């Protein structure tokens, strides 16, 4: 399915549509401007229709665990207050008004005219439902023309929601084009990339490096890659409360999010301390696993069998079997590893535990610079400032309390950046 100027077309018309797309986009960009106020009103109305259940049938097909919580977050993010606050935080007050510079040294003044970056190509990964819409919404708020290449896993929800948005505000129709082009159709994707001033790519390393291969020089790349979250523990303020919060975070997110805790680092070099921690923390995880039971037996079975297979594979290939020590709990586990690397866990309640003294924190995290995002910091009150500073210097961009590692906050940056700034440009006029 293709969405072109507010109407749906069959995928087989892709070639014809792509051939006239540039002319259409040029015409729009030459003659029209999308009023941000209209976009905000439309997004708020869209939120209302989601709240009223217009998309419930499609959403229920997605079969997402804890969907109500996700919808609450989406509804909140579509509210006017949130969008206005986001714009103000990311672009500054009165961004859309034309202003004048006020330079020193009696230099001449210049007009400052904010403009959208131009045309954005969004290559959305299929790993978060609704993400393509979110990405396009950010492009619309900043007034860009948006070409969206849907992920193959998209089950039709994105196109329906954006169609609804256009019904609410027909002005948007010239600013969104959606294609369900498969990733294998490089010819078509390259064509879209050639029209774009920026490519917004969501996904793992493979997706991002694929885009880097074909992105034209001069086209801005806005990469939202996958990340690895971790917890750093150096003493406690309120041990029971903090360990409970960490356990609930690990279990409830299934460790599937960028911000989910994969590895717990303890500020120590002592193996005894690691063992003592596991013995103490495992019951917390078990309680949390009981509170947020994971129903998908097929997923658990797949992970178990995969682990078992890897063990056999190691035996056959003669590769050294890691001297890991596993603390197995009911529906969860902790594994003590001898190394200090930030690493993906087995997920679904199976966390890694490693010793990482403060003195080695910086150098260790630098090795993983592309994957840093969230750290859950648990420490004594008097150490918080020092450790926060160390984490910030090492490249971490979200330093949270352990229980809030995956919480959403109004006005927070995205992977250390204000996305809207990247989707805009400034024109100086004499």
């Amino acid at each position, binding site marked *: 399915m293709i969405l072109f100027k507010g109407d749906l077309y069959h995928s087989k018309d892709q070639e014809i549509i792509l051939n006239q797309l540039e002319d259409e986009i040029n015409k729009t960009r030459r003659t029209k401007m999308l009023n941000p106020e209209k976009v905000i009103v439309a997004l708020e109305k869209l939120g209302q229709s989601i709240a009223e259940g217009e998309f419930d049938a499609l959403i229920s097909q997605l079969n997402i665990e804890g969907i109500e919580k996700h919808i609450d977050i989406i509804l909140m993010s579509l509210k006017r207050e949130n969008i206005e606050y986001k714009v103000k935080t990311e672009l500054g007050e009165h961004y859309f008004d034309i202003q004048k510079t006020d330079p020193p040294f009696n230099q001449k003044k210049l007009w400052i005219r904010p403009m959208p970056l131009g045309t954005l190509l969004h290559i959305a990964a299929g*790993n978060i*439902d609704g993400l393509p819409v979110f990405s396009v919404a950010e492009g619309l708020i900043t007034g860009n023309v948006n070409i969206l290449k849907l992920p193959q896993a998209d089950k039709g929800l994105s196109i329906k929601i954006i169609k609804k948005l256009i019904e609410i505000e027909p002005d948007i129709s010239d600013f969104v084009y959606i294609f369900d082009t498969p990733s294998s159709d490089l010819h078509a994707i390259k064509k879209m990339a050639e029209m774009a001033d920026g490519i917004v790519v969501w996904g793992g390393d493979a997706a991002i490096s694929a885009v880097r291969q074909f992105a034209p020089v001069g086209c801005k790349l806005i990469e939202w890659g*996958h990340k*690895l979250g971790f917890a750093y523990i150096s003493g406690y303020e309120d041990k029971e409360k903090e360990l409970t919060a960490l356990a609930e975070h690990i279990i409830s997110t299934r*460790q*599937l999010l960028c911000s*989910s805790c994969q590895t717990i680092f303890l500020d120590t070099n002592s193996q005894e301390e690691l063992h003592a921690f596991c013995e103490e923390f495992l019951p917390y995880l078990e309680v949390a696993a009981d509170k947020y039971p994971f129903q998908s037996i097929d997923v658990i079975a797949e992970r*178990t069998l995969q682990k078992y*297979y890897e063990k056999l594979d190691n035996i056959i290939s003669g590769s050294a079997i890691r001297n890991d020590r596993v603390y197995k709990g009911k529906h969860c586990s902790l594994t003590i590893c001898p190394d200090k690397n930030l690493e993906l866990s087995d997920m679904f309640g199976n966390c890694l535990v490693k010793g990482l003294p403060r003195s080695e924190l910086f150098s260790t995290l630098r090795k993983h610079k592309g994957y840093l995002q969230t750290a859950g910091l648990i420490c004594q009150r008097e150490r918080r400032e020092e450790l926060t500073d160390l984490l910030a210097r090492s490249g971490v961009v979200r330093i949270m309390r352990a229980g809030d590692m995956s919480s959403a906050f109004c006005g927070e940056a995205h992977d250390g950046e204000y996305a809207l700034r990247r989707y805009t440009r400034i024109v100086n006029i004499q």
Partner: protein
Amino acid sequence: MKYRSLLFKTSDPFDTFNTEELFVKAVKENSKYQYDNCPEYKKILESMNFKPDFIESYDDIQKIPFLPTLFFKNHNIYSMPSYKMIKATSAGTKGKFSNIGFDFTGLLCGLRMVLKIGKWRKLFSFIPANYIVFGYKPHRKNKTAVTKTAFGATLFTPAIRRTYALKYKKGKYVPDLEGIVKAIEKYSKSRFPLRFMGFPSYTYFVLKMMDERGKRYKLKKGSKIMLAGGWKQFYKEQVEKEVLYKLANKVLGIEEEDIIEFFGAVEHPILYCDCINHHFHVPAYSRVIIRDVESLEPVENGKIGLVNLITPMIKATPILSVVTDDLGILYDGEECGCGILSPYLEIVGRIGLKDIKTCAAGAEELIKEVKL
């Protein structure tokens, strides 16, 4: 391999009780052979501190290190030089195939088993029949076991003609369901019975197509529908078996007892054939252990888990004890009521991460369906 031969000569194909001692001996014999002739298998057993000599009683069978079918998709391991065996591949899931070697004596044992089970399920007849195969038309490039068994099933009676639903065209298989509908129409006028063999999914699609067009036939006595090969990519469209039975009766006049389902895997080449109540009882040549999805420890009957299948049938590849990608439940034989007392296996699902979404770095490689 004297115990293996004795086991496959057992007169009652479902007597798992009186064959237990023999089964244990045959398993031990097989395990010893694999241990001595397959270096990889020996390595695995050694690193798990297991020796074939440990097998003394039935309870020891669960302790034998098992190999997941995934293992055979990534490793070709054999216990014999290749000129001594015949190779077959599994139908590919996620584009990977198991390569399994079979020894000649093992296949003879298999033939004995097929004859015995076929006789019990009244599959043999001297009256010739036409065959519709809802599967692959044999082609020299296709080595999949499912193609071979589908063809094999057309040998239960003399075959007059065979029509295939999946035809090999320009290097790939394409389904030709319209052609099948036409063939059924033609064969229904024949004075000989018509037999169907193959994937349940295609069988169901064709019956549904015919039902929607209002086609009704009454096939000759001796006509049968044999189902095998799983639902594969049509898992989502999986219909309740009863729906299929009713449809077959409505469209073709085939009674429920003439619908036979088979279950098997190239990594466990035992013919599982359903009883009149459509349950897969464990035959004497095989044993099933359901294992907990987390601990891999055996669970009691009635509980869901990973399916561990054990048979001493094959020497050429160490498929003595394998775990499939299926999730299943084993029930006490008496619960069926058909008279067979061996426990029966129900396949209830398949392992997988396909619906899981993640943005944790590296995790998506685990979930192959998620692409750019």
